[in-house]
């Protein structure tokens, strides 16, 4: 059997979805509560790493995951840069927030102009980036040998 024992796999199956959901929650509420793109992105990456450690990995799948995560990482970076440039084009200021997107009222989920969008971009970049680091370090290979 590839990966770790049945107990670990069942628990991972239960936990991974919740972790992903929690990561998404932290990312989306970044402008309201502590946390944000980075913290949520770390959670998302942790969920992905957990799955790939518990269930083992095939080399080809890992390579595809690596390519995919590098694509997601670059798009996260581009999205963040795009938000900055949007403010630049609209109001001459890099990262201009006021008057660009819907600001809303404080402490509502849809509010804060570009800040939630920037959190999503960072979450994408950090989640994919950390998972790519994990794959590049090849940590799962060492687990599989034991």
């Amino acid at each position, binding site marked *: 059997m590839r990966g770790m024992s049945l107990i670990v796999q069942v628990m991972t199956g239960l936990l991974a979805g919740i972790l992903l959901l929690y990561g998404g929650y932290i990312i989306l509420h970044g402008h309201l*509560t*502590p946390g944000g793109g*980075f913290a949520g992105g770390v959670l998302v990456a942790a969920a992905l790493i957990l799955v790939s450690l518990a269930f083992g990995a095939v080399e080809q799948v890992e390579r595809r995951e690596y390519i995919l995560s590098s694509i997601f990482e670059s798009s996260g970076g581009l999205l963040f840069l795009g938000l900055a440039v949007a403010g630049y084009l609209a109001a001459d200021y890099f990262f201009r927030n006021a008057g660009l997107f819907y600001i809303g*009222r*404080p*402490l509502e989920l849809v509010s804060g102009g570009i800040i939630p969008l920037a959190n999503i971009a960072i979450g994408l970049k950090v989640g994919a980036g950390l998972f790519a*680091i994990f794959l*590049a*370090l*090849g940590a799962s290979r060492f687990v599989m040998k034991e």
Partner: protein
Amino acid sequence: MIPYLACVLLFLIGLYVVISKRNLIKIVIGFSLIEYAVNLFFALVGFKKGALAPIITQPEQVRMGVARNFVDPVPQALVLTAIVIGLSTTALMLSLAMRLYEKYKTFDISEIRRLKG
């Protein structure tokens, strides 16, 4: 004063580990200690006794002037950035250590001496 000195002590311990240990992984750990010491120091800079965390949970709080009793949020934001930088350096350092292990089959720096100088 004591917390600040503890940070300096942690920094020195990290420096000692980096300088004196021969194992690559231990060097990386020592480096992480240095980083934590500096981050902790920076976070302490913003501390104010009896102040609140700089989070507004109710819109009315803005008018009530809660912000005057907050700890300085700037160092926290800066430390978060520094932690992200530290994460990437640690990851890079570990991957270099792994590459060195693959090439030399050892983690001992006294045996990794292809470069003279």
